[in-house]
């Protein structure tokens, strides 16, 4: 089976899982919201209206204490929160995969890389990011740098483990024997196999950054000029009567729910991926060595064995 066919197959069986489908739809809704924020948002988020307007057709969620339209802030918040999550996850997974590949294939270099990885992994990263943010008051780019800096070692370690287990297999040795260069072996033969490791890592990283960024903003350590969901929550929480009036329903609840739903959609996706990789975790899945053969196990056995081919590519 070619790599492409395998990817398509894996994708198709992922979509068969309802959880993954829900997660994907949920995530796409937010991605669309972020991408088309200027057309979806009723106003420019920087325009000032009357403060604390109640909901009206013009301002579906009303306005905040200095007169920003809350719905527009929410839409543009999706833009910032999602793009920083997506980009940091992308960068740290890419860097981690490349370094993990090198570390797994080239022993000497790998030793050096892994020592750096070990140091990074021993550091509790979120406290450190908060501390650095408190000092340097980062803008979006610096924040991106922080998250990437502390995100890549996890991916690198997992990818390296995968490469180590693949390196001595027949197809790699065959490629070496016909004289393929190291770079070709790594890119053409080993890299595709790391996808089942890198993808879940990407999702986990995305999740982490969304939560971490909103937390930073909530503490007042984000950039106060760039609208993000965490910042909205932070301003809402700082408003004196937010909790005792109904104001929180349209000011604090929407951004909080948005963060929750994005994290939930990612959690669903990563759970679906995990289930694919390790079939015994499935709720209704078959278990070849089931301790008590149950009705559900029999009923789904045929279906599970049909998915055998993808599992080969997903060795952990």
């Amino acid at each position, binding site marked *: 089976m070619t790599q492409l066919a395998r990817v398509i197959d894996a994708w198709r069986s992922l979509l068969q899982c309802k959880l993954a489908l829900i997660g994907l739809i949920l995530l796409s809704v937010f991605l669309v919201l972020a991408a088309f924020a200027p057309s979806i948002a009723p106003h420019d988020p920087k325009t000032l209206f009357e403060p604390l307007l109640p909901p009206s057709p013009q301002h579906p969620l009303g306005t905040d204490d200095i007169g920003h339209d809350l719905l527009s802030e929410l839409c543009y918040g999706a833009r910032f929160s999602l793009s920083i999550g997506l980009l940091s996850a992308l960068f740290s997974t890419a860097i981690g995969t490349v370094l993990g590949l090198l570390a797994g294939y080239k022993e000497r270099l790998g030793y050096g890389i892994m020592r750096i990885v*070990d*140091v990074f992994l*021993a*550091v*509790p990263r*979120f*406290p*450190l990011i*908060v*501390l*650095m943010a*408190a*000092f*340097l008051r980062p803008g979006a780019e610096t924040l991106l740098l922080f998250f990437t800096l502390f995100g890549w070692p996890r991916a690198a*370690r*997992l990818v390296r*483990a*995968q490469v*180590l287990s693949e390196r001595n297999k027949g197809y790699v040795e065959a490629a070496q024997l016909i004289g393929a260069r190291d770079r070709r072996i790594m890119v053409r033969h080993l890299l595709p196999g790391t996808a089942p490791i890198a993808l879940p890592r990407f999702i986990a990283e995305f999740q982490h950054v969304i*939560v971490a960024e*909103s*937390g930073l903003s*909530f*503490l*007042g*350590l984000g950039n106060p000029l760039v609208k993000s969901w965490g910042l909205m*929550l932070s301003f809402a*929480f700082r408003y004196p009567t937010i*909790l*005792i009036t109904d104001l*929180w329903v349209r000011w*604090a609840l929407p951004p*909080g729910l948005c*963060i*929750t*739903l994005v*994290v*939930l959609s990612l*959690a*669903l996706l990563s*759970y679906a991926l995990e289930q694919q990789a*390790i079939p*015994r*975790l499935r*709720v*209704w899945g078959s*278990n*070849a*060595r*089931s*301790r008590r053969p*149950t009705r*559900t196990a029999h009923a789904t056995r045929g279906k599970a064995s049909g998915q055998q081919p993808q599992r080969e590519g997903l060795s*952990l």
Partner: protein
Amino acid sequence: MKTIQTLLTLLILVSLNFALPRLMPGDPLSYLDNDDPSVDSPMLLTEEMRGKLLAYYGLDRPLGEQYLRYLGGLLRGDLGWSIYYNAPVWDVLWGRLKWTMLLVGTATTIYVALGIALGALSAWRRGSATDVGLMVTTFSLGSWPSFFVAMLLVIAFGLRWKLFPVGGARSPYLLGASRWEQALDIAYHMVLPVSALVLTQFSGVYMLMRNAMLGVLGEDYIRTAYGKGASERQVLFQHALPNALLPIVTMIAMRLGFVIMGTMFVEVVFAYPGMGTMIREACMARDYPMLQGAFLVTMLFIMVCNLAADLLYGRLDPRLALSVAEGVRVA
């Protein structure tokens, strides 16, 4: 090996802590008297005072000497002087740390116990309504940011239904009360913050426990146990649970960092007098020595816990120690 590595990492952290204020534009004193009107400047300095202060704190010495003095101070337990609280950092920290530890300890005990029990139950009855129900609930709970959950709890249980206090760690004016009444009062104030933490943290343990249990239940020794005629109860409590519990040990230590950070956010919402609230105050007041001290202690604590878990795990599970000794890395 692990110990050396932790020490090395610690040295890097301490050095970073030393470097951070010096990486900022201006000298370490410039944040004391900045021109930014939005920040409450603790003091205004003349050129002469500035020179004297720099000399007093040894900031005019070469960097290497400053670094050694800083390390020496840390070894003696001297974390510096808080500008905002005008007291030694360690003293302020210790007063707050107790409350945070109380929250973290209580919440950890509850969420770990709950996660283990429900996770094991879920795996044991895989595919049943109980399992599916628990999975769905856990999934939806695990995604909520802790400060958001805390806010919702305040609104619902604190303000709408007025069941629990909305903030603080104890009622004022309880001086004449007996010890017992005081303890009750503190527990009463802890209900909502601890609930927020348990609700947000428990899903991790539940998932891990469920996965571990499913793994164990597929093992040959479980079948052997059934084969030799052990009862369901015996298999569960004597064969499956003890083995499935092993990864939880590491998990607790690994998650400790998350729990502590979660606690900080929850404290901010409840105005609980712990480290989280203090860190926010220090952030607002730009009390950098305080922040550095707080984070150094937090990170040190988390790292020591991780190290302890690593060392303990090898003892608890001899199979792992063996595989490490043979040079087999378990990914």
